[in-house]
């Protein structure tokens, strides 16, 4: 099946609402698993990786949670397909570089995805909108257990699930929440918060994970340690930390409204002006400005705009989604032109828009 036909439309994807989504865009759980008796992907020769992939892939695809899903080797996927998957956070950038001997299984609604032969034999991910770390773990846990019937996971009574990298040993879990923190950025408090969260043993990263910068005021908070603590405890701590960050972000937004309303309106009004009227606009500028519009909508300063539209534009503005939409390969400069066209078209359509006075 063709990937692009399989993927849900951006409208559908952006329409999902979740609890606390004025700050938390999504909650995610990733599990690392390996099967017994086979070298890890980084060590295995190509023939062995292919064989392992052919062994694992059907077992995953046959799981009931994957009914109506998408299952494919990474080899036939085009560069554009892979980039679309990265932009939807369904595969890692590392996995996008893989070919024969690596695979991908996606559930129909794109909330479950399994990378085969990434760094580990299996990297499984469950994704839900808003703050739902506990729910998303339950979903992942059920799926993981359902696979035990078919796959013998490498497990040790003392060290837990055995993973290629010792940093994932034990539970193999990475729980993360994608946070939208424009208030903390605008009030210059975000570094302090990042430091505090890091001190508590959590990692804070940008939009696309490790080593990426925080575009669009988006920050991903996740656990660092995986051994010596149960999944439930790890999740509970992340949940608590995220609740704290939400509170700080809410306070920062209120402070801005109280003490720097003019500056805030200026930021948001200019962001709207640029996106609604520019003819050339980069992806970074778009993300940062859409982020300000999202803040405006959540503070109810903007009548007429909705977050699903903004979230959809955010996704469509990414390079691969831009190219899929236009239907041809585009250079960076061409993308900036098409992106501006897209934004003007959508933002001009918004009826009854009222900017803050």
């Amino acid at each position, binding site marked *: 099946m063709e990937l692009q036909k399989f993927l849900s439309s951006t409208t559908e994807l952006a329409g999902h609402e979740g609890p606390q989504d004025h700050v938390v865009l999504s909650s995610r759980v990733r599990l690392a698993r*390996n099967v*017994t*008796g*086979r*070298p*890890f992907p*980084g*060590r295995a020769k190509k023939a062995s990786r292919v*064989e392992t992939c052919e*062994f694992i892939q*059907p*077992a995953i695809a*046959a799981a009931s949670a994957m009914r109506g899903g998408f299952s494919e080797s990474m080899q036939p996927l085009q560069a554009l397909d892979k980039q679309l998957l990265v932009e939807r956070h369904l595969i890692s950038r590392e996995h996008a570089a893989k070919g024969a001997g690596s695979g991908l299984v996606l559930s129909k609604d794109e909330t479950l995805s399994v990378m085969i032969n990434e*760094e580990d034999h299996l990297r499984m991910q469950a994704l839900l909108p808003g703050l739902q770390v506990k729910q998303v773990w339950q979903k992942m*846990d059920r799926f*993981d*257990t359902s696979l*035990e*019937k*078919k796959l*013998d*996971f*490498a*497990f*040790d*009574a*003392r*060290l*837990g*699930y*055995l993973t*290629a*990298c*010792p*940093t994932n*040993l*034990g*539970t193999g*879990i990475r729980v993360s929440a994608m946070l939208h923190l424009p208030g903390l950025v605008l009030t210059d408090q975000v*570094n*302090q918060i990042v*430091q*505090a969260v890091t*001190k508590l043993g959590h990692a804070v990263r940008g939009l696309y994970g490790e080593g990426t910068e925080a575009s669009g005021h988006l920050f991903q908070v996740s656990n660092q*340690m*995986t*051994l*010596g*603590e*149960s*999944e439930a405890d790890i999740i509970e701590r992340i949940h608590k930390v995220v609740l704290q960050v939400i509170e700080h972000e809410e306070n920062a937004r209120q402070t801005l409204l109280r003490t720097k309303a003019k500056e805030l309106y200026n930021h948001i009004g200019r962001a709207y002006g640029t996106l609604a009227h520019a003819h050339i606009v980069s992806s970074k500028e778009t993300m940062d400005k859409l982020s300000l519009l999202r803040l405006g909508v959540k503070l109810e300063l903007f009548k007429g705009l909705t977050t699903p539209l903004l979230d959809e534009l955010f996704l469509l503005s990414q390079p691969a989604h831009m190219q899929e939409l236009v239907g041809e390969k585009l250079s960076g400069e061409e993308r900036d032109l098409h992106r501006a066209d897209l934004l003007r078209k959508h933002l001009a359509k918004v009826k009854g828009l009222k900017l803050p006075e």
Partner: protein
Amino acid sequence: MTEIVDGQMKKIDLCEECAKDQGVTDPKGFALADLLLGLGAASEMESGSGELECPACGFAQADFKKSGRLGCSDCYATFAEPLEGMLKQMHKGTQHVGKVPKALRQEMDFTKQQQQLEKQLSKAIETEDYEQAALVRDQLRGLDVPPEEPVEPKAKGTKSAKGVKGGEV
């Protein structure tokens, strides 16, 4: 910036921006030790000096120095010793307390129960509570028969199997 960590002086040069990011300007939020944790305490495993080689996959300690990844699940047994310090530093503990595959759960519960009873028995003997000791001994005898094989006959023990199983799905 200079800081003393474990009696060793560490010096590090930071540009203005990194310094700001690391919170050097805010003395409460900064500890050079955190920054250096990875560097200062290069573990036995990371030094890559050991001669060990994994019998299952041929992975050597020098390979770990290069990639930071192990070769196969058996490597954890091969390199258990050099890994120990690193795991201690990296994680909250070195004993897994999370999820256990269903098929192994029963087996592990059995071992735990046995250990508990043995403890009770020696305590009873110590306190010369022979009545209790006899009771516990009987319980232990009852345990001697391991529980029924788990429902999934495929399940292996805690050690990973070497046999390659292809096309079983």
